[in-house]
């Protein structure tokens, strides 16, 4: 009993409650006509889609820059990579990894500029970051029209210029990661092994990075900047590096998301992408100053699980289609809950 108590305290009551709620939903599902195997399949796919976007928040949390509400900055870099790779006609694996490679320089550049800005507004990073994200998305809404893309697969059919709001990846690199080593059972169960492995690979790399000298310094900066400075570490440099890495992971994250989703979404698409990621990380038990890989994985799984299951179960109970409304209420409610629950660090 004592051991159980310790485990719960360690794991955190909110997570235990959410976990049992999720289990409850899975148990309830068959009785209201929701297929369990489809549900599992959805949860795993959504976990894989969102995992790296959640992971992208970790470096900035660790360096004390707070939750990266400016995640759209990284997403835009990823979108640039994706659209350019498409324009160049890359397909399949070459397409996906080509998009990754092309996105990286943009991510580094954007991240560096974004980092410089955040270093000037210490203490208010999260608010500023949110508006940086909004501004970036809006600016690129103009750019998507103006940039000289010509590939017929991407531009508006009637004008011959300007990118469409959604571009299908069907003939490019849609599902390449998902189908790698995929497990299919019956008609309804599909496990996107490749994508999940890729998420774990990225999480592993981030984990190793935080065991390096730079990663250690970054954690110390987040924990106590004065200590780090007295230890000969440049606080601003570490923060900038963390923002760059966060932005790079954001770019990787959106490319993984899109190959699974099957479409590139431009214009207002990235506007609110930071919020579900933030909610997932906080539900995973991270604080504003500390986040671990366990927080990322547990948080993404629980958040996406609830987000997948609740609307379908409730929908079937109510027998009307209001899944989108429920999804919005739920995801914002979770963010609200998570932000009020955030644990403080001692000073």
């Amino acid at each position, binding site marked *: 009993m004592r051991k159980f108590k310790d485990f719960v305290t360690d794991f955190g009551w909110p997570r235990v409650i959410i976990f049992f709620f999720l289990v409850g939903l899975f148990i309830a599902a068959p009785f209201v006509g929701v297929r369990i195997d489809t549900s599992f399949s959805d949860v795993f796919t959504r976990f894989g889609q969102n995992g790296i976007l959640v992971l992208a928040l970790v470096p900035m949390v660790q360096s004390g820059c707070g939750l990266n509400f400016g995640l759209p900055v990284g997403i835009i870099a990823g979108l640039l990579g994706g659209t350019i790779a498409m324009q160049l006609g890359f397909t399949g694996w070459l397409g996906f990894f080509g998009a990754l490679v092309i996105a990286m320089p943009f991510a580094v550049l954007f991240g560096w500029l974004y980092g410089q800005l955040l270093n000037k507004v210490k203490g208010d990073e999260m608010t500023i970051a949110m508006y940086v994200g909004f501004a970036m998305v809006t600016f690129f809404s103009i750019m998507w029209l103006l940039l000289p893309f010509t590939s017929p697969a991407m531009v508006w059919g009637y004008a011959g210029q300007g990118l469409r709001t959604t571009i299908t990846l069907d003939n490019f690199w849609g599902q390449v990661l998902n189908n790698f080593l995929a497990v299919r059972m019956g008609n309804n169960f599909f496990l996107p092994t490749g994508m999940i492995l890729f998420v774990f690979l990225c999480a592993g790399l981030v984990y190793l990075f935080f065991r390096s*000298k730079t990663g250690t310094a970054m954690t*110390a900066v987040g924990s106590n900047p004065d200590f780090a400075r*007295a230890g000969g*570490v440049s606080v601003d440099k570490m923060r900038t590096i963390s923002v760059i890495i966060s932005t790079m992971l954001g770019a990787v994250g959106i490319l993984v998301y899109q190959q699974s989703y099957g479409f590139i979404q431009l214009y207002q698409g990235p506007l609110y992408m930071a919020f579900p990621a933030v909610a997932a990380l906080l539900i995973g038990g991270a604080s504003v100053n500390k986040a671990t890989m366990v927080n990322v994985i547990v948080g993404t799984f629980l958040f996406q699980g609830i987000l997948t299951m609740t609307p379908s179960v409730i929908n079937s109970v109510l027998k009307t289609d209001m899944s989108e409304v429920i999804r919005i209420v739920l995801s914002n409610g979770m963010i609200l809950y998570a932000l009020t629950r955030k644990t403080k*660090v001692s000073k």
Partner: protein
Amino acid sequence: MPIETPLLSLEGISKDFYGNTVLSDVSFTVEKGQIVALVGENGAGKTTLMRILFGMPVIADTGGYGGLIKIDGETVKFDTPFDALDAGIGMVHQEFSLIPGFTTTENIALNREAMRSTLACEVFGERLSVLDRATMTARAESAINRLGVKLDPGMLVSEMPVGHKQFTEIAREINRENVRLLVLDEPTAVLTESEAEVLLKALRHLASQGISIIFISHRLHEVTAVADKIVVLRDGAAVKQTASEGVSVRDIAAWMVGRDVEAKRTDREGRDIGEEILKIEHLWVDMPGETVRDVSFSVRKGEIFGIGGLAGQGKLGIPNGIMGLHMAGGCVVLHGKNLQLNDPRAALEAGMAFVSEDRRGVGLLLDEPLDWNIGFTTMQVHGRYLKSYLAGLVKLRDEAGLRKLADEYIKLLSIKCTGPKQKAKELSGGNQQKICLAKAFALKPDMLFVSEPTRGIDVGAKELVLQSLRHYNRDFGTTIVMVSSELEELRSVCDRVAIVDEGSIAGILLPDADIAEFGLLMAGETRKEAVGA
């Protein structure tokens, strides 16, 4: 001649904050028109005593006080400062409590403004009466005249020199008709010498009009010049009360600091004190509250060099400036090489280490385990405790090495903890201090700065910390510069002790020098190099 009842008498005042005694059985009296000087080191209890007298809420919040306060022979107990004001006690604080955008007159008359009725008052009542500027100015002028100084009643406080602000504060207090006792908490601390002269004259002028004054100051020559009676507080007790006639500055200094213990001269056996290792010339440091103006000294290899002085005089600024944590300028030469200032990394790479006085703020990663706290700086600066993988392509933290390092220091300094993975915030103050020392030791420095190593830790831990410093110095020949507010501590550990006053070195003494010499230097009285140091 009938015996006059004293205006104020304090009888057996005692006060403790959560079991920590700050005042015990303090008694003295203040006669009408008498100037009583209250002197003592930082933390002797002067401010607490005045807070009790003035009925500050902090006293009642922390459990009240013991003893009696009598005014005109009648016991009083003030619950709020307003009661004290009504009883005729005025207080001039260390920090100015003036409104910068108001004139002298407006500040003096604040909340006691003279009013003039207008027609609107007939209809809407008293609240619409207007200020009677002429009367206010007249009253302000009369208060200024009582002080016997020159002040322009129409001048804005923000445009005044510091001295005039101080006079405005005093004028505000004596503007009340019933004021009989004035308490001045270090009124001359911010003044220049000539301004202080004028102030002292004003105080005598006030006393001659029958106002009693309690005067708190660190400047001892002012005390002897102005006071009729001197009360010396030390560690919460009134150790000496005497009329000021025939008392020399040296006597007061000795009473102030004089714990009658023999300073142990650190034995030099087995220690090798060599050439000059560190030379500091005209160092200035912009550290808030601890400004260093112009400091020059040099330290020899293997020596333990102490820096003492009163709080706020700049002793803490010296190590913080050298280590690059606060803006600094001047010349610091280590091993004959000029040190790059304002760059903490350069200072660490040059072989120096620093144990900060701000343990929780700068010294520790409270949310991280002990092995991180100890190993972090050496990992960042010297690249130790990193393991290479993939033929040196990737370097990762050597967890096992860090744990071993932490275990080693936990044993060496007998740190009480559950192990190297315990979080730093869970340790007690003394053990946290040992972690800070371990962090500095792990750097294997040639030159170690230790700032207030025993602040806020209990007596037993204090001795252990000092002992480990002594041993580290003896075993590794590390030069140590130790900054401390506790003179006794410096005298027991150091080979030489420098006293800092007003941002520069007032003098350097040997630890077994007469205690009065230290007191004099701290009070800014004499400046001379100790013989043979």
